């Protein structure tokens, strides 16, 4: 694979491939029902979480489980009154700022690995991806020591730097694959017309890659929002994020299912929505662009 020769020919055959339809009527209906059962089965724990979030604690602790109940917003009120707000803000800030940094650093890098490739493109790509393969747990001790030495424990910017580094390789790989889809002739035509590089990037490349960049951003946001390992080890009260907030529910005593479910719903909702929007690019992101 060479970056120079692979461009312009990426007419992916699956883009408009029709979904095969070859089953007979009777078995077809059966398979449809089965598919729906599997879908609802996988979704059910999430549905149950949301339902339980609207129950009273008494309704949440019944055997057999209660399916019909008078919904209440008390749990959500309690979660927000109990101070989930700062955690949400920390998560939001860390997620948005780190994603912006990823795009800021990653877009030029992806450009230098695709449209105007540096000589050692393969080596650089290999390096970026290899950083994702090393277990973070092996780095946590020195990171903790250094962060502690710098007085940056429990500081949201520490998480931002780490999340940027965590997502940058994925973003570079993803965005590179989008840049490669830009037809070379278009760029050449633009430069023939005397457009500067900056202008052709803005007016030719950007419109083509912007959907891909949006998907990349959403995937980075999902990863940052869900990140737990760094957050739990490097933050305490001021910079803690939403996953750290949920730790408080491990040791709860008494009846707490309903409030737990309300908290989990609040924590998970933003990323679930982001993921639903980005679902077509999800695989591409997680496979570093290897699968479209």
């Amino acid at each position, binding site marked *: *694979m060479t970056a120079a020769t*692979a461009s312009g020919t990426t007419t*992916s*055959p*699956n883009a408009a491939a029709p979904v*095969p339809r070859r089953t007979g009527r009777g078995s*077809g209906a059966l*398979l*449809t029902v*089965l*598919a729906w059962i*599997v*879908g609802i089965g*996988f*979704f059910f724990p*999430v549905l149950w979480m949301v339902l339980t979030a609207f129950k009273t604690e008494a309704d*949440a602790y019944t*055997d057999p489980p209660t399916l019909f109940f008078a919904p209440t917003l008390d749990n959500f009120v309690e979660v927000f009154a109990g101070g989930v707000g700062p955690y949400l803000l920390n998560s939001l800030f860390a997620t948005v700022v780190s994603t912006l940094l990823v795009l800021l650093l990653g877009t*030029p890098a992806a*450009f*230098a*690995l695709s449209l105007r*490739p*540096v000589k050692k493109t393969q*080596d650089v790509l290999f390096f970026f991806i290899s950083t994702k*393969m*090393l277990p973070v*747990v092996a*780095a946590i*001790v*020195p990171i903790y*020591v*250094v962060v502690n030495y710098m007085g940056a424990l429990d500081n949201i910017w520490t998480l931002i730097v*780490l999340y*940027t*580094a965590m997502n*940058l390789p994925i973003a570079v790989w993803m965005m590179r694959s989008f840049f490669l889809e830009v037809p070379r002739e278009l760029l050449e035509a633009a430069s023939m017309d005397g457009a500067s590089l900056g202008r052709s990037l803005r007016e030719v490349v950007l419109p083509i890659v912007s959907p891909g960049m949006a998907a990349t951003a959403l995937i980075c946001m*999902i990863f940052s929002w*869900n990140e*737990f*390992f760094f957050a739990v*080890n490097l933050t305490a009260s001021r910079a803690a994020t*939403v*996953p750290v907030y949920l*730790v408080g529910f*491990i040791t709860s005593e008494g009846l707490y*299912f309903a409030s*737990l479910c309300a908290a*989990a719903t609040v*924590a*998970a909702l933003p990323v*679930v929505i*982001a*993921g*639903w929007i980005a*679902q077509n690019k999800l695989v591409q992101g*997680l*496979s570093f662009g*290897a699968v*479209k």
Partner: protein
Amino acid sequence: MTVTEATPQAPPERPAERGNARKEGWIRRAPLLPALIFTIIVTQLPFLVTIWYSLQSWNLVRPGSQRFVGLENYATVFTDSQFRGVALNSIILTLGAVFIAMILGLAIALLLNRAFVGRGIVRTLIITPFLITPVAGALLWKTVMFDPTYGLVNFVLGPFGADQTDWISTFPRAAVIVALVWQWTPFMMLLILAGLGSQPAEVLEAARMDGANGFAVFREVTLPHLRRFIELGVVLGAIYLVNTFDTIYMMTQGGPGTASANLPFYIYQRAFLGFDIGESAAMGVVTVVATIIVATLALRLIFRSFSAAEEA
């Protein structure tokens, strides 16, 4: 990335041209450097420091205890039977979750690879477990799903005699695997669906024209085509899952004892609860070496997939 990047095959140039070529090289490199330097500093330096720490005897609880001990920590790690058990747990949890998720993902992808009413909705429903914050998902399984008295699992399995089973303390590893499979099956399904979608329609058509029945087409055409995607899913899944921390932290805290602890969780315990910097660093290095072996395989696969995708 080296600064002294020479082009040995290039014909001898006049100094001015060489200067220009070098300038051109730096102009090309400039957009890449910030990202590259940032990544090297944040991700590579800590590993180097980890190696250095692993050669020290250093416990944070005893200030001033830091001294160079060579490979002593490694000797301790390899003779630590708990470490060996935890390493085995890592393998069981990773492989167990990856293979079950792959088999389920493959089956569901085949089920979804046809036109039917609400296909998009079903796909969206299935990927939701993968999106939900893992900490929230684990908490959900620990409580409303696996609770012995009020959990859904025992309610569903009640008729089969599973009443009041405390799954998490009786079968901690299996419970963790269930939560991980729930989370990762959607990923495998999406990957296989992408593979099924990239099958050339003509080949399928030709096979059917030749009179092959559905199963024969699947075995002879589809499965070989999917092989690359299955391999990729297994390897990527293993890379992500070997780092599992949040699910174990939330569901079992590695317990009872270290029955369900994997390497990341155990190293965390030694570093942040035992404050043993030297030993946990040595364990980290061992984990990295083990991962590199798997990762080399993974990288080869990803690059092969990438070439195949770009040649297509």
